[in-house]
């Protein structure tokens, strides 16, 4: 008896598709409903930021960095300004360091909230979406009252931050931190504890540890595959070595764990925010830096733990006001390679949740 097979066919998802979180496109081969091959196609948002950097001065490039991972703007700029500071040997004032950590962690919280929100939306859960974005809005309000922009703050400068926070900032931040445990409980109840979510996500899209390391996956996805690695602990930048926090790690390697680890990281970010709020000193927020930034000849590679993965900044200076090369290593770009490796054999609706669990933002993938 011959086994009859359906003909394989390929469909195109994206670049304009609600569940691709931006302008991501994938060509999917299907056998019935089962995915047999996925080919990611990226570049629809490519703005050539590395090339742009070569024709801008060091200071002029800072606003562009916010546009990489636009859901967590501050952390991108943090990597860039710290790389330049390392190259020039600039000491940043204490208050500025604390403010940087506060904004970087707030950006991480906002990004993780949005990831949980959009992850739920991909399986038709509208209510968690509105809960998460409601709380994310409070963070964006904090950004707005400080820098005037909701997402792309352009707040960090080489040598500090552009100005001090307004008086109403600290009370608003304190009340936000106080509300965070209640929020997490709510997300757990409505999303992670939900039966439908668990049956759709548990043991779907397994990314084993060896494969994750071989594919050079970084960030929360790596930690959900059982590797306890965080640049903030392994190679502390700025003043991250002063804070007492844990690196959560999960061993499930599946879509659910890749979502759930974000909830755990929210608790750790809360600890950092609490300690930063307690210890922040008064004082200047900008170091004495020459008006014209002219780093000496040299190379520096600086990495930071972005919410979407590790971001690396390789800056080569030729001693002039413009860099010779600015290389951006976006974590999300490398993490895209997870998709063709783990989505094979799952149904097309699982492909959508697997994609959501990768937590991509196309501004960072496409540079």
């Amino acid at each position, binding site marked *: 008896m011959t086994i009859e097979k359906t003909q394989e066919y390929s469909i195109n998802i994206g670049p304009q598709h609600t569940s691709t979180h931006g302008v991501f496109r994938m060509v999917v081969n299907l056998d019935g409903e089962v995915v047999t091959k996925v080919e990611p196609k990226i*570049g629809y948002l*490519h703005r050539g930021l590395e090339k742009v950097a070569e024709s801008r001065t060091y200071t002029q490039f800072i606003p562009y960095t916010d546009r990489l991972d636009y859901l967590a703007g501050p952390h991108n700029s943090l990597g860039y300004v710290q790389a330049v500071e390392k190259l020039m040997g600039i000491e940043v004032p204490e208050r500025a360091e604390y403010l940087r950590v506060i904004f970087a962690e707030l950006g991480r919280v906002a990004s993780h909230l949005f990831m949980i929100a959009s992850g739920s939306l991909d399986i038709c859960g509208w209510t968690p979406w509105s809960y998460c974005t409601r709380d994310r809005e409070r963070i964006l309000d904090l950004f707005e009252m400080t820098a005037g922009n909701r997402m792309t703050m352009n707040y960090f400068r080489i040598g500090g931050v552009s100005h001090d926070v307004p008086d109403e900032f600290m009370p608003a931040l304190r009340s936000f931190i106080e509300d965070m445990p209640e929020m997490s409980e709510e997300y757990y109840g409505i999303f992670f504890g939900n039966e439908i979510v668990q049956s759709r996500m548990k043991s779907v899209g397994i990314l084993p540890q060896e494969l994750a390391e071989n594919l050079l996956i970084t960030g929360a996805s790596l930690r959900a595959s059982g590797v306890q690695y965080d640049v903030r602990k392994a190679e502390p930048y700025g003043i991250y070595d002063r804070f007492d926090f844990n690196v959560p790690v999960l061993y499930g390697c599946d879509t659910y764990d890749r979502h759930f680890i974000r909830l755990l990281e929210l608790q750790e970010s809360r600890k950092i925010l609490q300690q930063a709020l307690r210890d922040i000193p008064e004082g200047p927020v900008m170091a004495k830096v020459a008006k014209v930034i002219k780093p000496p000849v040299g190379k520096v590679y600086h990495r930071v733990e972005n919410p979407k993965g590790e971001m690396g900044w390789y800056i080569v200076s030729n001693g002039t006001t413009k860099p010779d*090369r600015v290389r951006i290593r976006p974590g999300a770009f490398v993490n895209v390679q997870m998709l063709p490796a783990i989505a094979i054999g799952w149904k097309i609706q699982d492909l959508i949740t697997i994609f959501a669990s990768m937590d991509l933002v196309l501004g960072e993938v496409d540079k």
Partner: protein
Amino acid sequence: MVSDVLRARVGELAARVYGEVEECLGVLELTVNYPDAIAALTGAKNFAEVPCDFLHDLCGMDLGDHLEVVYQLSSLRGPQRLRIVARVERDNPMIDSATHIWKGADFLEREAFDMFGIKFSGHPNLKRIYMWDDFEGYPMRKDYVIESHEQRAVMRVRKEGE
């Protein structure tokens, strides 16, 4: 700071792959010629005690008279870091692919090919990644002329089946 063990290991490796070692802002940098790049990467991955077994980044560089491929190595289990720089000819940039050591080098090499035209032999799927397939030139090279859209008159031709 660079540990003495790592310094000794890199010194041994440099002698084996005919490379030069220098230190730049607390990171050791090993410069080799392109035929020895894979030997250097494999050697660094298998260092005793201080294995640099995680390819953190791979990127191209244009130095004017030659191109470079820069590998940033680190480890998930220790503080060791190493930068390996492979010099590549400008006229016919060829280098062996690192995809059989790290599968994840796939996209990074495709990007270096897209932006600098460096050909990675042994790569499973060496196509442009950011720019479209019939794009001409390599945008990140220093001699790439930036013109306005109208002057360049770049047309995207849709292919059958896309």
